[in-house]
C-alpha cells in the first residue's frame, strides 16, 4: 500500500520547548486518518510540517514521496485550516477564483468553482464578501477551496469546530464523498467524529501514544474498570487490588482506572473497596470506545508524569 504522509522520528522544538518528541506515523493512500490529542499536543505543528510551513528540528517528513516544501507536492494537497485562511474582503467566488488561479489545471474552471460552491451550498451567496459569512459558511467555503485542486491529500484542521449540528452533518457528508478520491488527514478534538469518519487514528501528546487502524486500537484496549471515589485515597490503600488480577492502577482527581489483564471481577473489586473503607460513588467497566482509549492514554501519561515530578521533588 502507498504511503502518502510519513513522519520519521520527527522532533520539533520552539526555543527550549519540545512540541513534537520523536513522532513517527504513516498515512496510507485512501486512509481517513484521525489525528487526535489535547490542546497544545502538537497537532497544528504537525500539520504545518506536513504543509512545509515549518521544518523539523530533527527527523524527516515525507509527503507523496517528496519534501513538503516542494511546489509540485503542495499542488497536490488541499487544506482547510482551523482559522479557514480566507480573504474576508473578497467574495466567496473571488476567493475560489484566486486559489483556483494558483492551482489552475486547465479549462472549464468556472464550471468547477460553481460546482464546488453548489456542493457546499454557498452558490446563492457567492457574490457576498466573506466577512458577511457565519463561521459555518466559512468552514464550508474553506472546504470547497480545499477541493479545488482535486487534491491527492486533503488536510483538515478541526473541521467541525464551531459548527451547529446541521453544519457538522454537511461537512461530514462532504468528507464522506471526498474519501472516494483522496486521502484525508483530519486533526480534531471531537473523538466521536473521528471514530465515525476515520479508519486509522493516531493519538498525540507531543509524542505518539497510540497509532494504527481504528479497529486494532479499539480491540487492543485492555479491560478497564472506572471507579469514581467519594474522597481521595492513596495508592498504598489500593495495593491489594493487584491480587485481584489488576495490572495497573491509575489514580487521579477522585477517579481511578483499573487496567485488567483479564475480564475484571467487578464484585471482587467492590468487596475489596468496601472492606478497606474506600468510599466510592460509582463503579463500572469502561466501554471499548476511542473516547475511553484516548482518556486512558492521555490521563495515564499525565498521571505518570505527575508521579515522576512528585518523586523528583522528593
Amino acid at each position: 500500500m502507498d504511503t502518502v504522509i510519513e513522519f520519521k522520528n520527527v522532533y520539533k522544538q520552539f526555543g527550549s520547548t519540545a512540541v513534537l518528541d520523536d513522532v513517527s506515523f504513516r498515512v496510507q493512500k485512501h486512509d481517513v486518518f484521525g489525528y487526535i490529542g489535547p490542546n497544545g499536543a502538537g497537532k497544528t505543528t504537525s500539520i504545518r510540517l506536513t504543509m512545509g510551513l515549518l521544518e523539523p528540528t530533527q527527523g524527516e517528513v515525507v509527503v507523496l514521496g517528496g519534501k513538503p516544501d516542494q511546489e509540485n507536492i503542495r499542488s497536490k494537497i488541499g487544506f482547510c485550516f482551523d482559522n479557514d485562511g480566507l480573504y474576508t474582503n473578497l467574495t466567496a467566488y473571488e476567493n475560489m477564483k484566486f486559489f483556483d488561479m494558483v492551482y489552475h489545471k486547465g479549462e472549464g474552471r468556472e464550471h468547477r468553482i460553481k460546482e464546488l460552491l453548489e456542493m457546499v451550498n454557498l452558490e446563492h451567496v457567492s457574490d457576498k464578501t466573506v466577512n458577511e459569512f457565519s463561521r459555518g459558511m466559512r468552514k464550508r467555503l474553506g472546504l470547497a477551496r480545499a477541493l479545488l485542486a482535486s487534491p491527492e491529500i486533503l488536510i483538515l484542521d478541526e473541521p467541525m469546530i464551531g459548527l451547529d449540528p446541521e453544519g457538522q452533518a454537511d461537512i461530514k457528508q462532504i468528507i464522506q464523498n471526498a474519501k472516494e478520491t483522496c486521502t484525508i488527514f483530519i486533526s480534531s478534538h471531537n473523538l466521536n467524529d473521528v471514530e465515525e469518519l476515520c479508519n486509522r487514528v493516531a493519538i498525540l501528546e507531543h509524542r505518539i501514544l497510540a497509532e494504527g487502524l481504528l479497529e486494532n486500537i479499539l480491540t487492543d484496549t485492555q479491560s478497564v474498570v472506572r471507579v469514581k471515589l467519594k474522597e481521595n485515597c492513596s495508592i498504598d490503600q489500593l495495593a491489594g487490588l493487584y491480587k485481584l488480577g489488576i495490572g495497573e492502577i491509575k489514580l487521579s482527581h477522585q477517579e481511578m482506572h483499573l487496567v485488567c489483564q483479564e475480564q475484571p471481577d467487578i464484585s471482587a473489586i467492590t468487596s475489596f473497596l468496601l472492606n478497606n473503607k474506600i468510599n466510592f460513588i460509582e463503579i463500572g467497566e469502561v466501554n471499548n470506545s476511542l473516547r475511553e482509549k484516548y482518556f486512558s492514554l492521555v490521563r495515564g501519561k499525565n498521571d505518570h508524569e505527575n508521579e515522576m515530578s512528585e518523586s523528583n521533588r522528593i
Partner: protein
Amino acid sequence: MTMKMKCLKAIAYKERIAVRRNIKSLLFIIVVFGIILLATSVSKCNTFLNEGVTDLKPLLMGSVSYVSMFLSYVAFMSTLKFWQEKSMDALDSLFSLPMSIRQVLTAKVMFSVYIGLLCFVPSYMISTLVFVVAFKVFAFSAVHFLAALVISMIFQFSYGVINGFCMWQLSVGAAKVAQIFTYVIFLGGIISLNRCMTPEGIQMNVVYMLCSALVLLIVGAVYALVLTNKEKIILNHID
C-alpha cells in the same frame, strides 16, 4: 504557464479587486496630491523667473519628474498591503499554496509597482501639459522620462520588498525601526529630486545622495529577499 506567471496573475487578481473597491479614495488622494505638487512646482519656477533665470526647461523637466515620481509613490504606497494577510489570518493558507515565499513577496510588490507605473505615465503627461500652459515651455524628453520611470520603479520595488519582509518576518518593534529607516531613504530620495535643480544648475551633491539612497535600498531589498524565511514568518505571526 510557469508557476511564476501563475502566481503573479493570481496575486494581481486578488490585489486588483481590493484596489477596485477603493478606487474612489485612491483617485481622490492622487488628485489632491497632484494639485498640491503642481501648485508648489509652478510657484517654485515663478521664483526662479523672478530671480532672473531665463532657461526654465531643465528646471521644469526636474519638476515634471518630481511630480510624477511622487504621485507614483502615493499610488504605490496606497496599494501595498502586507498587513492584509496578517490581519485576516491568511498567512498559513497563502504559504501553503504551491508558490515560493519569494514569488509571493515579489508578486505583491510588483502589482503595486504596476499601479505606481500606471499613475506615473499620466502624471508625467499632465504635469508637462500644465507647465506648457503656465510657462509656454515644452519640458519633455524621452530619456528623462525613461530615467525617471526606471528610478521610480527601482525605488518602489526595493522599498516594497523591504517593507514586506519587515511586516511579515520581523517583530513589531524591529519592523517599525526598519520601515521608518527605509521610508526616510525612499521619500528623501524622491524629495531630493526637487532640490536638485537650482538657478545655478544641477546640484551634484544631491544627485550623489539620490544615487546612494537608490543603492542602499537595492542592497536592502536583496538582503531581505535572501533572509526571507517561511518558518520565521509563521512563527512571528503565531507570536
